[in-house]
């Protein structure tokens, strides 16, 4: 089984382009694995990890492109490498024939667009500080998508940003809204009066999408990155963003979405919230409300959206486990009539915050060792050299089919629509679940799939069509991820109905 490598010297391409090309090459006959990486130190590590490092690849420098394939024959390897180079050449030709001028430096870009106010930065993490610091020092706000940015770099970038009065959204920020416009992975939502501060990923997407479905809109959504509320970063950007939203006349209420802040950061957060003269809803997954907090605390993403919309309408937020309990009862009865459901539950998520929320809910409802496993397939360990599962569904498809062959009773999934996501993510998900259900049925087992969709009517994938495809594959869809997790819990532990369906919390 030959592993063949080809190096294209000084041929920089961004990681999304390269992962797409690798995905296309991987589908060729006789190809077991394919990778296309720039020769950065972290990429050399990845190639070692996936067993595709070769003496040639090891000699590549950060500006050199490494193409490497693991093929069944020399002929298949040679054909795949030729195909990869053709794809790259086509791309380069398309870029060069486009009429736009592409400056090489931030300085020349600023000469072309002197009123630029945001730098969106998604270069490899090792270079992120270099580029972001330049932008911050020129007074630009920064959307920093890059991951693997050293913690010390983040601390220094945010300190400089605060000093200069600009936002440093990230690192590892996937989603932001400024003045109603989405940057990164975003759902299309109306401009409105609700401001958000979030680590920024699917948690923010879920909350803004639900806010839109409830008839409200977003003023700004500030992503701060997953480490902002750590002791080291000290909440530098979350506190700055909260104060900025507090002073923004177009923002009438604020939602905070996060994991629990470090014990040293929580009092600072509380102190800032206490000074805000607008309603604040805090959705801190996995934390209890501190005594005397000025914010309305909720424990799920759907409740965050419901609470902020209710507060703006001067209503007391209702806390419900299901939005339509009688419909849930009927659905449960229908499913239970088909026989018992095996208690092994597998959650296969593309959204990290959604996976975390499901995990917390299931641990509290079922107990920690109740046979449920929730995986965030966007986690680094599943995405080595591959696009995020919100872009490329293959890794989840493979795991769903595996679940069909094993004794999984309940499969819990999410589907995240919006800019940046796969153009038709419901199609591969529905197909995989149909196939897995058929495999389980052929083996005399039963597989029930439960899920929820994060999306809006304005999203490019067309929400209604996506929902219809999932329903066509017999996926039990719930209005939110929290409801989907609770419904999944009811399937494996029907006695929970007494607490989840009979009593409003």
């Amino acid at each position, binding site marked *: 089984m030959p592993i063949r490598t080809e190096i294209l010297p000084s041929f920089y391409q961004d990681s999304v382009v390269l992962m797409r090309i690798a995905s296309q090459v991987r589908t060729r006959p006789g190809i077991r694995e394919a990778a296309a990486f720039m020769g950065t130190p972290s990429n050399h590590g990845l190639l070692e990890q996936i067993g595709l490092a070769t003496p040639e690849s090891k000699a590549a420098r950060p500006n050199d492109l490494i193409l490497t394939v693991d093929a069944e024959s020399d002929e298949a390897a040679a054909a795949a490498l030729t195909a990869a180079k053709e794809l790259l050449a086509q791309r380069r030709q398309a870029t060069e024939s486009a009429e736009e001028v592409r400056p*090489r430096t931030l300085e020349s870009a600023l000469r072309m667009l002197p009123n630029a106010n945001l730098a969106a930065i998604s270069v490899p993490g090792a270079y992120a500080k270099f580029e972001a610091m330049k*932008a911050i020092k020129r007074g630009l706000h920064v959307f920093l998508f890059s991951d693997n940015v050293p913690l010390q770099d983040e601390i220094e970038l945010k300190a400089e940003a605060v000093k200069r009065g600009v936002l440093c959204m990230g690192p590892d920020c996937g989603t932001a809204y400024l003045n109603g416009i989405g940057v990164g992975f975003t759902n299309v939502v109306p401009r409105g009066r609700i401001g958000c501060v979030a680590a920024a990923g699917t948690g923010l997407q879920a909350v803004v999408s639900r806010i839109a479905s409830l008839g409200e809109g977003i003023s700004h959504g500030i992503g701060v990155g997953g480490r902002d509320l750590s002791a080291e970063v000290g909440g530098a950007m979350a506190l700055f963003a909260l104060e900025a939203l507090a002073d923004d006349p177009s923002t009438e209420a604020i939602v905070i979405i996060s994991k629990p802040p470090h014990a040293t950061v929580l009092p600072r957060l509380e102190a800032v919230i206490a000074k805000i003269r607008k309603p604040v809803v805090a959705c801190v997954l996995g934390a209890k409300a501190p005594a005397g907090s000025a914010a309305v605390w909720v424990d799920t993403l759907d409740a965050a959206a419901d609470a902020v919309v209710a507060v703006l309408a001067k209503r007391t937020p209702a806390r419900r486990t299901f939005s339509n309990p009688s419909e849930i009862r009927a659905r449960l009865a229908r499913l239970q009539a088909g026989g018992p459901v095996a208690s092994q539950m597998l959650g296969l998520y593309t959204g990290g915050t959604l996976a975390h929320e499901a995990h917390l809910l299931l641990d509290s409802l079922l107990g920690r060792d109740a046979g449920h496993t929730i995986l965030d397939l966007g986690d680094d360990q599943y995405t080595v050299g591959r696009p995020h599962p919100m872009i490329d569904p293959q890794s989840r498809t493979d795991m769903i089919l595996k679940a069909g062959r094993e004794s999984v009773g309940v499969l819990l999934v999410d589907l995240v629509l919006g*800019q940046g996501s796969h153009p038709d993510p419901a199609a591969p998900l529905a197909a995989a679940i149909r196939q897995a259900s058929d495999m389980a049925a052929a083996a005399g087992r039963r597989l029930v799939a439960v899920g929820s969709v994060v999306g809006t009517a304005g999203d490019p994938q067309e929400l209604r069509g996506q929902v219809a495809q999932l329903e066509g594959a017999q996926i039990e869809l719930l209005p939110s991820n929290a409801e989907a997790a609770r419904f999944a819990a009811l399937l494996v532990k029907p006695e929970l109905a007494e607490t989840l369906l009979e009593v409003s919390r």
Partner: protein
Amino acid sequence: MSALKIFTEPLQVINIGIEGFAADLKAAGVEVIQLDWRPPTGGDARLTALLASLQDED
């Protein structure tokens, strides 16, 4: 603090990295300049860090 100007101004973006972000912003009517980015200093991370620390001085 006074309200951030970016909250009231039209968004104008310099995109450094993944081109898809620029395409989505353009589709939303935002002015975007895509940088033809290459790793600085030929990709030498140590030299880049050194340059970044020199930036800190200004």
